[in-house]
């Protein structure tokens, strides 16, 4: 790729795929933007009048929006907290020399390969079901009354399910990072009189900061759009207690047939995602530099 000839050729050959990718992104975005200014409801076809920012006004002043906005934050924050905390712990455990370590690592990774709908169904029917679920049996065995997870703590239940799915991902990324830590640093800390907690806090944790940043950024992108787990378990209820922005947009456009309102919600979600992205990059992005 050194001569100007090869550079031109490279650009020429990249051109079609770049155009395709750009169109793939821009066309739906522009259409959504366009729909969001229309009175576009599938129940009253043929009207489609331009109504300015009315869709946005309705979406943003809807009490459901605030509920789902905070639910989204709780969901993302809760899952990040659990997966990072648990991930660091698991990574440290998996780093120890134990018998059959390779098999344990594969088994730990397994939940990540289960598709969201399936894992949500397994949790809903096998574990969290208030009558037949494992947790219910366990509770009755202990003499307590079983928790009806999706009625009493719907959002927390979803956080638990999603955390279970994402824990292996965090653990694996953090494990590779721990393995790249220079053992002589730990030896030096040993001689310097650092106990296990000092060693973790002053040496392991700073070494992990880059991996933690990567986990936060990647997970946030995916967690903002959690949908299948909610649809399969609680359908956003009771009330709006487990509805996030993604699910709210789905109810708007596909359950209430309000394409215009849904599009406005979609654009709002894009803006929120970008704000979060900028915020995160400013806050922790510097960890990825150098």
């Amino acid at each position, binding site marked *: 790729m050194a001569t100007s000839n090869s550079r031109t050729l490279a650009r020429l050959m990249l051109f079609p795929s770049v155009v395709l990718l750009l169109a793939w992104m821009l066309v739906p975005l522009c259409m959504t933007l366009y729909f969001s200014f229309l009175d576009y409801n599938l129940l009253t076809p043929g009207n489609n009048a331009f109504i300015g920012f009315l869709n946005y006004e309705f979406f943003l002043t809807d009490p459901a929006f605030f509920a789902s906005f905070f639910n989204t934050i709780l969901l993302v924050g809760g899952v990040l907290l659990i997966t990072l905390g648990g991930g660091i712990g698991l990574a440290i455990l998996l780093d120890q020399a134990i018998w059959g370590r390779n098999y344990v690592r594969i088994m730990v990774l397994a939940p990540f390969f289960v598709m969201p709908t399936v894992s949500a169904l397994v949790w809903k029917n096998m574990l969290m079901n208030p009558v037949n679920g494992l947790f219910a049996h366990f509770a009755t065995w202990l003499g307590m009354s079983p928790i009806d997870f999706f009625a009493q703590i719907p959002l927390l239940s979803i956080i638990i399910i999603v955390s279970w799915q994402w824990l292996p991902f965090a653990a694996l990324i953090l494990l590779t990072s721990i393995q790249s830590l220079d053992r002589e640093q730990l030896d030096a800390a040993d001689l310097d009189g*650092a106990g296990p907690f000092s060693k973790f806090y002053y040496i392991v944790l700073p070494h992990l900061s880059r991996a933690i940043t990567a986990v936060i950024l990647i997970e946030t992108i995916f967690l903002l759009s959690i949908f299948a787990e909610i649809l399969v378990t609680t359908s956003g209820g009771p009330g709006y207690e487990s509805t996030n922005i993604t699910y709210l947009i789905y109810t708007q456009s596909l359950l209430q047939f309000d394409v215009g309102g849904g599009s406005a919600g979609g654009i709002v979600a894009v803006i929120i995602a970008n704000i979060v992205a900028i915020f995160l990059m400013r806050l922790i992005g510097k960890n990825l530099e150098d």
Partner: protein
Amino acid sequence: MGSINLKQVTKDFGDVSVIKPIDLAIKDGEFIVFVGPSGCGKSTLLRMIAGLEDTTSGNIEIDGQDATDTPPAKRGLAMVFQSYALYPHMSVRNNIAFPLKRAKVSKAEIEKKIASVTKTLNLSDYLDRKPGQLSGGQRQRVAIGRAIVRQPSAFLFDEPLSNLDASLRVNMRLEISELHKTLATTMIYVTHDQVEAMTMADRIAVFNAGIIEQVGSPLELYNTPVNKFVAGFIGSPKMNFIDIEPTATDATCCLGIRPEHITISTTSGTWPGKVGVIEHLGSETFLHVHVEGKATFTVKAGGDCPYVYGDNIYLSAVENKMLHFDAAGLTLSQ
């Protein structure tokens, strides 16, 4: 403060015995160098003294106290690692302060100690930099600073200069020797480079395959090696070995002669040979001479050496400078 006694110390990794029973008394204030080829167990022994490796059997005594099972931090030793092992996310100041903070030293005291250490090591200008922004030599100095600041009873160096380039290595060698003279603290220094061993040590311990072959001052080892291994390992270029047939009265199987103890003549001598590659170093010249029926000899000559590749010359040994080895490789006294 700083004498270390090894008594019948051994180390096994599974079935493999890395250190065979070793006895060694290291005196207070001594600069002792562990030297040997890679894999001979010298670094493992150092890590055992530091407490980073368990001792399979035997005792390690520090200042007369049994420290075999004492955790590393309680042994009062400081170590400088091959990779320097600086904490990359901490500034130089925090790196040096780390052991003091762990020992709960007061803030004012820490400041005072850092100031004096950084002044000794010429690091005052770099206090707020991270290790990544320093050169190899500076990092090395920070690592040494982190060791000094604790005022340990002994310093352990694990091949500290092997990551530096040649000229810097010579400088750091001098600085470490200088430091030893000013601090007068026991230093144990591990290296595979016999030049470092010869130039820095008060005493050298030559390691081979988990045992100590010989302990002694650099010149003792150079002039009176106990066996063929030590004779070949100490000295650069290496000693020349000539295999001979033992006779009924003389058990000598092998003769050893150092390059500087061979004289060259164009007319007569013990071994006729052909000059091979010539290495001119300015002040001296090393000739590689192929001797018929024997091996290639390395011969040291003066700086203005008149011979060229392919010359036919005669070599003879300087009187009484030859070493005799028996079949087991042990030095025979003449």
